């Protein structure tokens, strides 16, 4: 059954282990799945390169516009250089932007649009610069200069106006002009115009022409007047053209500004669309990642939940099946236990009944045998003595069977009366002194000083326990000693005292493997013990039951060949009293004055002796019996007695004669007459008796009388 339970437990454990593994794997996979969100989150957290580039490009275009405006205001070439550098930077950024947008058609389309728009804006800015320089004016002046060239050449020829001619601006270098790029050319034109503004603006040129005209008038008025007039006309015409060109230029500038605003608006709108598209792309990315994780988690959870359910069902079925089998086995075990208990009960009842049935006729056999022995010959008496001894032995075997039956049925009620521990222990010692002497061993006793004087409990059962243990110890000890000890182990707050009773012998000991079963019923250490020492094997079983039914413990330690120690622990409430507790005599309470006294009971009638012995023994006294005056004299001669109970009507030498002989021998021990004739009371003292008691006497009367004469 235990193995079966273990198997069920193992299966249940395996089931839970599998489930735990499944859930663990599920959690791990879900964790891994959730971990998959991290790159997406990381990407989301990272700055959007396209948006950055986009913003940088727009910002740099604005910066370029700033440089351009600065240039227009300051005409500083450095500004133009910065504008040029900024344009390169913008071009690089736009290239990068287009490169990053290649994998996304929409994004690529937006990038292309931005590139076009920014290029357009730059071009517009460039064109704006060019337009603002007034190329038309330059062209008119150029025409005027061309018209003036013959005058220059003529003045050179005439060497009179060389200084004036030298002051005319140098001609631009064709090679250098060709080498300049678009923006450099713009700058160069600007420089040229600046120089013209500095050295020879239109007013100055007119003044110079007036000087020439004067000189020419002076030198050759007639040849040059027409020509000069022609120049003036051309200059006027150039001014008119310049004016017209400026108007056209202004219109162009306004148109360009409008175009630039339109471009800016387009760029702004494109940027807005780009930002929205990027935000949507980010949101799509998050949604896509979340969806993937959820799908993955859903799949894992579904698979694992399915697996878990299958496992639960599987193990539930298995465990339920096992539990069902377990319940069936349990029912079988319960039934078997009931049968066994019934069998044991029947066995005990049978043993008890048989013991009782055997005991009753056995008692009759003993009685008849004793009766026969009184009327038989000496030879027959010897045979009858053997019969009686055997019957008594048989009775001694049967009585424990009845005891153990009553103990097993819990039919023994334990008394709770105050008793004196030391007296019980001494009684035990006294009771077995002779047996120990007969066995050739010492019987020792040690009672600790701290053992309480009185305790509350069942004195008779304690005696029975100690009697069993000491009897066993003496039986199995053929040399050395048997030591009885009584120690106080402790005291509780409730006023209870834990007492340790120990019986240690130096006998044959018990094998280790036999120790465990010596307390079992009908069990002895080995079969040899039963053959050699006899017994039913119930003594220790009875002892253990007596101890345990008083909530005590009994243990044994032994070493073969060296001896055995039985240890009994019992707890008794302590009775604290200054006054000695004396039991009422009608309750058979022992009288401490009788304790240990040796009393000779001399009566030819068995029942008289039995009663006297019973009373004296109950009070701790020891008795020696005799049935005739002669026998009494012999006992008195060999043994010391504390008191004699003497029947008056003895066969042979009567009681009064015996007492006379005792007194004649000089013995002064108290002698109490026991008689059924009340009229003997008056004359008894004159015959050497110390007292008299009339049969049938009460226990208290006998005890009081004995105690009174014990002094």
């Amino acid at each position, binding site marked *: 059954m235990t193995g079966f339970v273990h198997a069920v437990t193992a299966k249940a454990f395996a089931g839970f282990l599998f489930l735990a593994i499944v859930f663990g794997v599920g959690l791990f996979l879900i964790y891994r799945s959730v971990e998959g969100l991290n790159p997406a989150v990381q990407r989301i957290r990272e700055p959007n390169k396209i948006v950055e580039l986009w913003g940088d490009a727009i910002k740099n275009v604005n910066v370029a516009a700033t440089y351009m405006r600065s240039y227009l205001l300051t005409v500083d070439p450095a500004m133009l250089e910065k504008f040029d550098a900024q344009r390169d930077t913008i071009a690089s950024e736009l290239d990068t932007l287009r490169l990053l947008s290649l994998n996304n058609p929409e994004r690529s389309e937006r990038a292309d649009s931005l590139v076009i728009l920014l290029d357009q804006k730059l071009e517009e800015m460039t064109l704006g610069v060019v337009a603002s320089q007034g190329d038309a004016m330059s062209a008119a002046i150029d025409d005027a200069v061309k018209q003036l060239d013959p005058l220059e050449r003529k003045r050179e020829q005439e060497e009179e106006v060389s200084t004036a001619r030298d002051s005319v601006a140098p001609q631009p270098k064709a090679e250098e002009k060709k080498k300049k790029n678009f923006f450099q050319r713009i700058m160069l034109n600007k420089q040229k115009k600046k120089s013209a503004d500095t050295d020879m603006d239109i007013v100055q040129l007119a003044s110079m022409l007036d000087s020439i005209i004067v000189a020419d008038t002076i030198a050759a008025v007639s040849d040059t007047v027409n020509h000069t007039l022609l120049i003036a006309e051309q200059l006027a015409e150039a001014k008119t053209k310049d004016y017209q060109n400026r108007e056209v230029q202004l219109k162009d500038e306004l148109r360009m500004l409008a175009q630039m605003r339109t471009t800016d608006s387009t760029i702004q709108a494109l940027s807005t669309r780009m930002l929205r598209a990027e935000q949507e792309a980010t949101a799509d990315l998050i949604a896509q990642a979340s969806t993937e994780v959820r799908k993955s988690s859903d799949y894992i959870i579904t698979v694992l939940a399915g697996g878990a359910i299958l496992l639960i069902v599987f193990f539930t079925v298995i465990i339920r099946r096992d539990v069902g089998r377990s319940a069936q086995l349990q029912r079988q075990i319960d039934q078997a236990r009931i049968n066994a208990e019934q069998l044991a009960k029947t066995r005990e009842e049978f043993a008890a009944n048989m013991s*009782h049935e055997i005991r*009753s006729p056995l*008692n*009759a056999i*003993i*009685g*008849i045998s*004793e*009766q026969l022995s*009184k*009327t038989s010959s000496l030879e027959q008496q010897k045979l009858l003595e053997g019969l009686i001894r055997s019957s008594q032995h048989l009775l001694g075997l049967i009585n424990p069977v*009845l005891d153990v039956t009553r103990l097993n049925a819990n039919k023994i009620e334990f008394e709770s009366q105050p008793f004196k521990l030391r007296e019980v222990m001494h009684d035990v010692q006294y009771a077995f002194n002779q047996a120990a002497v007969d066995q050739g061993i010492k019987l020792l006793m040690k009672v600790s000083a701290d053992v309480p004087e009185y305790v509350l409990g069942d004195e008779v059962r304690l005696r029975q326990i100690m009697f069993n243990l000491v009897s066993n110890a003496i039986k199995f000890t053929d040399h050395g000693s048997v030591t009885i000890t009584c120690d106080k182990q402790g005291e509780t707050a409730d006023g209870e005292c834990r007492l340790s009773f120990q019986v240690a012998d130096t006998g044959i000991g018990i094998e280790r493997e036999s120790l465990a079963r010596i307390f079992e019923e009908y069990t002895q250490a080995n079969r040899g013990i039963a053959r050699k020492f006899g017994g039913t094997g119930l003594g220790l079983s009875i002892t253990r039951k007596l101890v345990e039914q008083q909530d005590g413990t009994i243990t044994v330690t032994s070493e073969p060949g060296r001896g055995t120690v039985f240890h009994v622990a019992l707890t008794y409430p302590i009775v604290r009293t200054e006054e000695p507790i004396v039991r009422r005599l*009608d*309750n*058979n309470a022992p009288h401490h004055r009788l304790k240990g006294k040796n009393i000779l009971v001399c009566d*030819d*009638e*068995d*029942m*008289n002796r*039995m*009663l006297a012995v*019973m*009373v004296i023994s*109950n009070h701790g006294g020891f008795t020696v019996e005799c049935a005739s005056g002669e026998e009494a004299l012999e006992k008195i001669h060999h043994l010391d007695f504390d008191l004699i109970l003497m029947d008056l*009507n003895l066969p042979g030498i009567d009681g009064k004669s015996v007492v006379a002989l005792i007194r004649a021998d000089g013995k002064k021990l108290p002698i109490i007459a026991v008689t*059924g*004739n009340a009229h003997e009371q008056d004359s008894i003292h004159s015959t050497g008796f110390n007292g008299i008691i009339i*049969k*049938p006497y*009460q*226990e208290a009367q006998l005890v009081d009388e004995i105690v009174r004469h014990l002094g």
Partner: protein
Amino acid sequence: MTTQKHLNLSYIKALSGGNNGFVVRMLQTFCRNVPPGMSKLNEHAAAGELVEVGQSAHKLKTMFRYVGMEGIANDLERLEFNLSDISETERSNLLRRIDQAAEKAILEAQDVILTTPY
């Protein structure tokens, strides 16, 4: 333990202190010793040995008192001390009554012995 009609075991039980074994042993002794005592009493009475009759009656008297049969004990006491004053017929009747009582007492004592747990 059955209820007794003739025996009164309260004295023995009181002295036994609840020890049924002692009660049983006392009754066993009673059953064992009364019959030979009665035989001796009758023999001595038949033989006209008055002193022996008195001695036998004395022994029996205490035993019957122990088992609470005071009437028989008193009859035996009459035989013990007043035998010479008793007529032959009365002596015979007395002895017969004692015999019958002893027989019933023994039977009852045996029943008690057999039915007393100890």
